[in-house]
């Protein structure tokens, strides 16, 4: 790992510059897929399987084709010739992983409710929907399995007959002598946790428009994606078009949470149909359609064991996961559990480590990365298990944490990676400055003394996560199909403004603002003089897009490096024009000076582009590109505290207070960072208390709309109290770490630990997420109160 000197804050970095994106978005002037309409455009509707598992014995689209205004209708078989390859899975985690083919439409069998079987293309969206109802599909319904553990039982219905098993892969990571640690342990605890299936619910549903440029075989795809570059790379091989002849544009994108970190059937269908019909083809998902056709998250059964000394020093952790893949492998489906595989020891110094994950096919919508991807699961398991160990030892859970915290950095952890920096004691100290535990305990005891039916509970979650994906070499070593670098170009235009072209692809994160702040400080411009362009493969440099809290720690550093190249060239040119030696020039805030002579970067840019007087051999222009591959992941950490109130009569469980102290390194824009933390906490609280995708025995999704799948609203959440500590990352010159997923990673464990605390006097030790009133009530009943 390299260590870099940290750059001190400039004028803009570190301040809450108002988001440049917001004026347009708040006035309703955003350009989302649904706002974009092309002349001559057709609408696509996908006919989807109502069965979780069924043989397709006949598809008749004649009645749909006969509707006036319907331009085409196709079965999966009729479109089979369009596909040069299967939809991509870029993460074959083991050599012997089972990777069944996955084409945009099913032809032989439907393997989950919502699996696409046929398409209708019509002049209007409503017509396409009407005609889709006229497509006659003969199904032979088959038994389905939606439970990840039942899918592994002998005789379980197979998702892919040709594989002969529902087991997709088994992946292991062993370090240290875990078995010995458990043999030698004075105390062990073993717990089983269930990460329920979640539905991501980006505010903007997915959508796509494809167009073949008239008179050419060049295709353009506008799509609501987090990953335009990866979409271009992968879809070129699905629809059989050279990468250079496919342009992918991500316009304004309204959230993703990982659900738009994927390459979808409908994108391929729009491209193939636009090519076939020679007219633009558009598709926009219905919310309920999205609930079955857009990836889900989590759905993992976890077993975690801790070994400890009698004093509470944790000596070993052993983890076994059974993780649902769903019916097919989407872009990174198999790898999601691996994103947590290294951090099941949490922020604790644990010498022995054993991790095993079994990936399993089920007759369900495919799972894939959902905010935190693997790390919320890891944090949940270790943070709940540490509380359980404390109870087993009769020790204070916070003291147990402090006893085991990693204290020296950089720290190479048992799983083999190196945490760049951190101060976990300081995070917990700060949290305890904001939270008076003694006062809380007094109130809790007082309620219990007077027999109040409303119990209070407090729960902690101290976490470290790895994000900022990622060093390309490590990604290669774990069989990920792409690199983890990113790119940025800075173009100082002749008349005093700057274009920043980034390979990241924001969909709500505010890169236009944060990137402007970085460039403005490095080059001496105002934030408003910087224009950030992104999300168009023809405009932006080849990049690796936005996911895994990577944009700032990778793309932002690429930008910083591009700025250094600009500064270097500007210095040479300034020295030439000012007729001084380069080393005589000072540079501060975009001004180069030597004595009473000076030039600003803006002046230098004009001189560079007019090119009337350049040093010998210097190319005209002031533009630079940097491609940056990080030497390490980014390791944010924090201490979160949740307070719940439980009505023991109804089981109603409410979050009443939430305190989050995070260390995300240097902060570029505090308001944006706070927003990310707020959103992440809300989503994690959603997992803990409200959200759950439920299938019935036949594989029908019972929570098929927003009335039955409960995303919490502002009314269910208290105002969050946020604070920060700061240990700058030594691996990058800005000292930054990722932040996009921290809240979702930390909060489920904090909330569920609070519930366990509230119910401890009743003998209730665990409740599955989400902690619905009925689950809480049943737990109390079963414990005999």
């Amino acid at each position, binding site marked *: 790992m390299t260590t870099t000197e940290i750059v001190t804050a400039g004028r803009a970095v570190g301040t809450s510059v108002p988001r440049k994106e917001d004026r347009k978005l708040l006035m309703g002037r955003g350009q989302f897929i649904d706002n974009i309409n092309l002349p001559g455009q057709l609408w696509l509707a996908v006919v989807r399987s109502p069965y979780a598992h069924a043989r397709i014995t006949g598809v008749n689209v004649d009645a749909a084709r006969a509707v006036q205004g319907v331009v085409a209708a196709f079965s999966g078989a009729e479109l089979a010739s369009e596909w040069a390859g299967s939809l991509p899975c870029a993460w074959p985690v083991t050599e012997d992983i089972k990777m069944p083919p996955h084409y945009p439409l099913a032809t032989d069998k439907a393997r989950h409710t919502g699996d696409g079987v046929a398409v209708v293309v019509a002049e209007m969206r409503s017509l396409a929907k009407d005609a889709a109802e006229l497509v006659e599909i003969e199904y032979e319904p088959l038994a389905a399995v939606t439970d990840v553990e039942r899918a592994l039982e002998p005789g379980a219905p197979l998702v892919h007959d040709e594989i002969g098993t529902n087991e997709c892969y088994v992946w292991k990571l062993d370090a240290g002598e875990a078995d010995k640690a458990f043999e030698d342990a004075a105390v062990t605890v073993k717990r089983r946790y269930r990460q329920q299936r979640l539905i991501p619910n980006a505010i903007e549903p997915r959508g796509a428009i494809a167009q073949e440029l008239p008179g050419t075989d060049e295709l353009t795809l506008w799509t609501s994606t987090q990953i335009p570059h990866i979409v271009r790379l992968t879809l070129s091989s699905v629809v059989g078009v050279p990468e250079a002849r496919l342009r992918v544009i991500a316009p304004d994108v309204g959230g993703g949470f990982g659900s738009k970190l994927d390459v979808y059937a409908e994108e391929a269908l729009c491209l193939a149909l636009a090519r076939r019909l020679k007219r633009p083809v558009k598709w926009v998902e219905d919310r309920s359609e999205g609930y079955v056709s857009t990836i889900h998250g989590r759905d993992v059964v976890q077993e975690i064991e801790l070994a400890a000394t009698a004093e509470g020093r944790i000596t070993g952790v052993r983890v076994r996961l059974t993780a649902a893949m769903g019916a097919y492998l989407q872009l990174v489906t198999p790898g999601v559990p691996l994103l947590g595989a290294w951090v099941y020891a949490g922020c604790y110094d644990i010498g022995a480590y054993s991790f095993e994950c079994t990936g399993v096919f089920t007759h369900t919508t495919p799972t894939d990365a959902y905010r935190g991807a693997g790390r919320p699961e890891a944090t949940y398991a270790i943070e709940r298990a540490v509380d359980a160990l404390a109870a087993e030892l009769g020790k204070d859970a916070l003291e147990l944490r402090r006893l085991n915290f990693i204290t020296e950095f950089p720290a190479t952890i048992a799983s083999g990676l190196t945490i760049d920096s951190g101060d976990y004691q300081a995070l917990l100290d700060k949290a305890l400055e904001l939270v008076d535990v003694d006062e809380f305990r007094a109130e809790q005891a007082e309620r219990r003394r007077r027999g109040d039916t409303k119990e209070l509970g407090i729960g902690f979650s101290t976490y470290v996560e790895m994000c900022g994906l990622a060093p390309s070499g490590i990604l290669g070593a774990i069989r990920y199909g792409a690199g983890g670098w990113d790119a940025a170009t800075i173009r100082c235009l002749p008349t005093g403004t700057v274009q920043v072209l980034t390979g990241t692809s924001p969909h709500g994160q505010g890169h236009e603002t944060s990137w402007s702040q970085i460039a403005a400080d490095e080059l001496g411009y105002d934030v408003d003089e910087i224009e950030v362009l992104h999300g168009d493969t023809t405009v932006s440099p080849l990049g690796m897009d936005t996911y895994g809290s990577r944009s700032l720690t990778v793309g932002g550093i690429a930008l910083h490096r591009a700025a250094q190249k600009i500064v270097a060239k500007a210095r040479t040119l300034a020295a030439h024009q000012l007729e001084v030696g380069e080393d005589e020039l000072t540079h501060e805030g975009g001004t180069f000076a030597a004595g009473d002579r000076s030039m600003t970067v803006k002046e230098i840019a004009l001189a560079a582009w007019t090119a009337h007087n350049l040093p010998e051999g210097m190319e005209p222009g002031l533009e630079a590109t940097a491609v940056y591959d990080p030497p390490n992941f980014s390791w944010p950490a924090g201490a979160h505290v949740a307070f719940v109130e439980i009505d023991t009569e*109804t089981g109603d469980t409410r979050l009443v207070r939430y305190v989050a102290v995070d260390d995300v390194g240097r902060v570029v824009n505090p308001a944006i960072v706070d927003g990310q933390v707020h959103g992440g906490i809300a989503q994690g609280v959603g997992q803990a208390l409200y959200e759950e995708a439920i299938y019935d025995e036949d594989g029908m999704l019972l929570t098929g709309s927003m009335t039955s799948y409960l995303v919490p609203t502002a*009314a269910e959440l208290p105002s969050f109290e946020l604070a920060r500590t700061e240990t700058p990352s030594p691996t990058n010159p800005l000292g930054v770490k990722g932040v996009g997923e921290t809240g979702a990673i930390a909060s489920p464990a904090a909330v569920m630990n609070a519930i366990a605390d509230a119910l401890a006097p009743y003998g209730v030790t665990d409740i599955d997420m989400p902690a619905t009133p009925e689950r809480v009530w049943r737990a109390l009943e079963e414990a005999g109160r």
Partner: protein
Amino acid sequence: MIPATFDYEVAESADHAISLLGSREDAKLLAGGHSLIPLLRLRFSRPSLLVDIGRIGELSYVRDAGEQLAIGALTRHRALREDPLLQEHCPIVSHTAGLIGDPQVRHRGTIGGSLAHGDPASDLPAVMLALGAELVVSGPGGERTVAAGEFFRGVFETAVRPEELLTEIRVPKLGSWTGWSYLKYTRRAQDWATVGVAAIVRRQNGSVDEARIALTNMAPTPVRASATEQALVAGEDDPAVHIADESDPPADTAASAEFRSHLARVLGRRALEEALNR
């Protein structure tokens, strides 16, 4: 989320609405739209004609009608909430209207739509049942009055015939009915009631001489809890223990039937305590 094709007509008056309804076999009334439009968009409801009664001003009112208050069917929940006559003489209606959905829903949704839709999870039907309200239904043959106990027939089924329009709801002035409560349980603030309890009690000389209790979402229709009513009048210690005895609660992702019965008992105890102390 695109409805199937339908025709659309705007009714200028109640009579006009009735004649439009009679013009097509599967015509449907549109008032506030907060139940119907989601069903249309999901294509669960596929009328050939929508008769929009939302602009019939003559059906939006609350009037003093002697022993009763008369409420026009198109009175919106927000107006019920704010109405001084209701607040004075039948506060359980204005209180409950203020608990429906969220502010957007309350500004669009109407009392008539809420009752005529026949959703067992809606709040106002149980309140009407507890109040013993009368519902005035108009059709081609004139008006008829249906007691709340006869009005609700099943899930999304009421006494309103396809060619009829619910025009007015008559609720008693509570007068000596001194105590009331409507409590419901929801996971999220704007959710449908998992369970709701409407309770109205008349106290005389320190004891309860009449009680009317009705439950939301404990059966295909709002349902009276007569065993609890009798137990309360008889002075039993825990009348609410019987509250679910006459129910047939649904089971869904919000709650099992067993948990709904439990919730009804807990809410029942709280509602009775509130009613007796109000």
